[in-house]
């Protein structure tokens, strides 16, 4: 009986030590990435945005992305009209890891496009926060987030996939693929008097997207970092 108790205590100790250590590792990693992102106070970026949503047929647009600490982000199409997914504000990565207080849990290792990543789950401490859970996939070698999945209470789930290039030192991606939830689009009845040309609806969403999911891809051409962005653009 005494031996059993000792074994139990030992297992508990090991578990606490390991999870405590894992949590500490996760916190350190998050802090490292956060410090890197924090070096960017503001930026103005040029890019191209492609939107893929079943009901939306919009051309690729040339956009300007403005960011200012702590969480101002604006995507503008200078030459025309763009449909910008509302959750796209989350492409500002500091929103995810500096947005609110959370508990970071190490969920092990994974691979993304031949890159070893550490999976960390962020559980918000505030029970009423809109974000229920965020999972970030951190490239430990380069100290950048490669992928982030966020589940919210009100606005569905969204996912970010980042590819890095020459701005990796600032933790700024060259390409972001943003996947988000959409609702079915329905026009009010009897307002359009459409021409029935007899064609069937063409499926244009990629196979990896679910029915009510949309995707926006932003490819960044250049960043102007920490040169100031006026508040008027937001």
């Amino acid at each position: 009986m005494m031996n059993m108790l000792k074994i139990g205590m030992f297992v508990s100790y090991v578990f606490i030590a390991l999870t405590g250590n894992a949590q500490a590792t996760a916190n350190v990693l998050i802090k490292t990435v956060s410090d890197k992102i924090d070096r960017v106070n503001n930026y103005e970026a040029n890019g191209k945005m492609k939107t893929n949503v079943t009901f939306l047929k919009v051309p690729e647009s040339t956009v300007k992305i403005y960011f200012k600490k702590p969480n101002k982000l604006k995507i503008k199409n200078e030459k025309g009209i763009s449909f910008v997914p509302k959750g796209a504000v989350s492409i500002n990565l500091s929103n995810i890891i500096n947005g609110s207080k959370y508990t970071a849990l190490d969920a092990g290792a994974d691979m993304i496009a031949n890159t070893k990543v550490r999976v960390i789950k962020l559980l918000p401490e505030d029970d009423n926060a809109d974000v229920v859970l965020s999972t970030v996939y951190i490239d430990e070698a380069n100290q950048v987030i490669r992928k982030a999945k966020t589940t919210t209470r009100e606005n569905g789930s969204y996912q970010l996939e980042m590819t890095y290039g020459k701005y990796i030192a600032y933790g700024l991606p060259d390409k972001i693929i943003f996947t988000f939830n959409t609702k079915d689009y329905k026009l009010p009845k009897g307002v359009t008097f459409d021409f029935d040309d007899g064609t069937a609806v063409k499926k244009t969403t990629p196979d990896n997207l679910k029915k009510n999911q949309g995707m926006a891809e932003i490819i960044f051409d250049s960043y102007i970092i920490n040169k100031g962005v006026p508040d008027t653009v937001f």
Partner: protein
Amino acid sequence: MLTLLRIELFKISRRPRTYIAFAAIAAIVFIFQFAFKADGENYMNLMLQSVKDTFEFEKVRAINGYFMCYIILNTLLIQVPILVALIAADSISGEANMGTLRLLISKPISRTQLILVKFAAATIFTILLLLWMAITSLVFSLLIFGADDMLIFRSKGDESQILLISRDDVIWRYLAAFAYATVALTVIAALSLFLSIFAENSIGPIIATVCIVIVCTIISNINVPIIDKNVKPFLFTSYLVGWKGFFYIATDSEGIPIKGSIENWPAIRNSLGILLLHIGGLVAASVIVFKKKDILS
């Protein structure tokens, strides 16, 4: 023949009702422009109500001259047939009513020539009406609201779509759409002319034309499978809105619109063909009936 056409056009230009059509179009267009200038955002909110939580977009920029013209044409092209009928339905019956028809056919011109000239004059009136529509709804809207990318809201089967056409890809579509609308409205002119042969005053053929257009339009917009398959293909009203086909831009495999493309050109071409057949049929029928008609007035 040309002299005869000039005389017919002169007669049309002297009738006050000719200008009612132009005034009505101007009034409707200006009311639309005023309404959208004052409160266009509400319309956008209505059209985008199911996606307003998902997307952010600049509604003010979307209410531009190109969008306005599309909205106005969408509404007006249902009413313009009535305005075309006002003139075309008066072609023969008006002469009969005034007692000038017998005099007219006693001139050294054939009845065929007379019908063709009346039809040509009605067609020219239709073209002028559409030109006026283009000026008021497109040119004035561009002056008032400016130019930007164009949004199209479309229902396709059970699905709804939002199409966005780049501003540099719009003008040719309007030119094509107005050309198509000319053919579509010429069918109405031909129908009115045909009906006017049977009447002694112009009220009857005008009302008959309007009734035919309204009834056929309602049938064309009823979504009942048996009607879709067996009736709609034979109604000219099913093809009146074919001009919209020029704004249904084709997309690539990723759903990105292809600049300068049309989703279904064969459908537009077939619609045009059917409308032209209607015109040919109605004018030919008018000639045949008029040639056999006893002219007593």
